[in-house]
């Protein structure tokens, strides 16, 4: 499907979406509460069939966190970027997509470790990179570390 068709179909399943087409891919921005139902449709619906989550990350925009999901369909060969906006930066939460794409397990662990986003219904949420007792989330913009030597 082309980006136009993707936009039309996406609007049908979730009308409150906003699109951003400045980059290479079509970006669909949705609120974090609606993530799981939308993702389920994107994975299973015949017209989308996004079976390949090739990148999952998070961006800290200081006033909100933005979860970024890069999805690709190996059948239709189209790509979409789904962004979920988390407004609560103190105690960020979002549903896990582990049930839909198994690759999300370690990627969500990584986001939890470095951004502090809690994934609900995640099978094994843990700090995979840093020690269990590490204080703070290093990739947040407000992270301070007095041992770090700034250039």
């Amino acid at each position, binding site marked *: 499907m082309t980006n136009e068709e993707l936009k039309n179909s996406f609007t049908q399943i979730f009308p409150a979406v906003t699109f951003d087409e400045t980059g290479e891919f079509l970006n669909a921005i949705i609120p974090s509460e609606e993530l799981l139902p939308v993702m389920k449709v994107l994975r299973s619906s015949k017209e989308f069939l996004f079976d390949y989550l090739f990148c999952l990350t998070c961006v800290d925009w200081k006033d909100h966190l933005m979860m970024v999901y890069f999805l690709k369909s190996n059948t239709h060969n189209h790509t979409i970027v789904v962004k979920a906006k988390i407004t609560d930066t103190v105690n960020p939460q979002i549903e896990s997509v582990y049930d839909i794409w198994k690759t999300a397990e370690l990627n969500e662990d990584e986001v939890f470790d470095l951004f502090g986003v809690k994934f609900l219904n995640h099978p094994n949420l843990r700090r995979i*990179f840093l*020690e269990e007792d590490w204080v703070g989330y*290093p990739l947040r913009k407000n*992270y301070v570390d007095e041992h*770090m*030597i*700034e250039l």
Partner: protein
Amino acid sequence: MGLKDKLEFPGQIHETPDGGFMVTQLDAVINWARSNSVWPLAFGTSCCAIEMMHTVNAKYDWSRFGFEVMRATPRQADLIIVSGTIVMKMAPVLKRLYDQMPEPRYVIAMGACTISGGPFFYNTYSVVKGIDHIIPVDVYVPGCPPRPEALLHSMIALQEKIKNDAYFRKQVDKK
């Protein structure tokens, strides 16, 4: 003996200045054996480990100098070549590996990362800035990563260092 004499602690009294003939000769034999049979631990964390593997292979062939037997367990190793960055989470493990090695044990810090943090010195929250914060180091090899020749050179330097050790003399000095 030259360096050793210069560094003597002032006020220390020796009954036999060089530990006596017998002890010195024993030392010479032991040091010869130790310096020519340094078994490294199979331990590599990142990029430098590849250059270490190059040192093993036929072109450089460290087995010529007696480094041949690479042991997987620290109990049987004499030398730990720390090849690659050590991060905060790895630091206790490295310390533990070092503690598990029986005496005498030697450490080579291979590459810029292990010496000072190297490319990961600034703006990093997790890298240990020099493994000498964790374990004592015998020889430092700079480079990112050092060439195999540099590693070989460091190992020969380590052999020189071992040859100047004084195992029995220290025992005599203690008494």
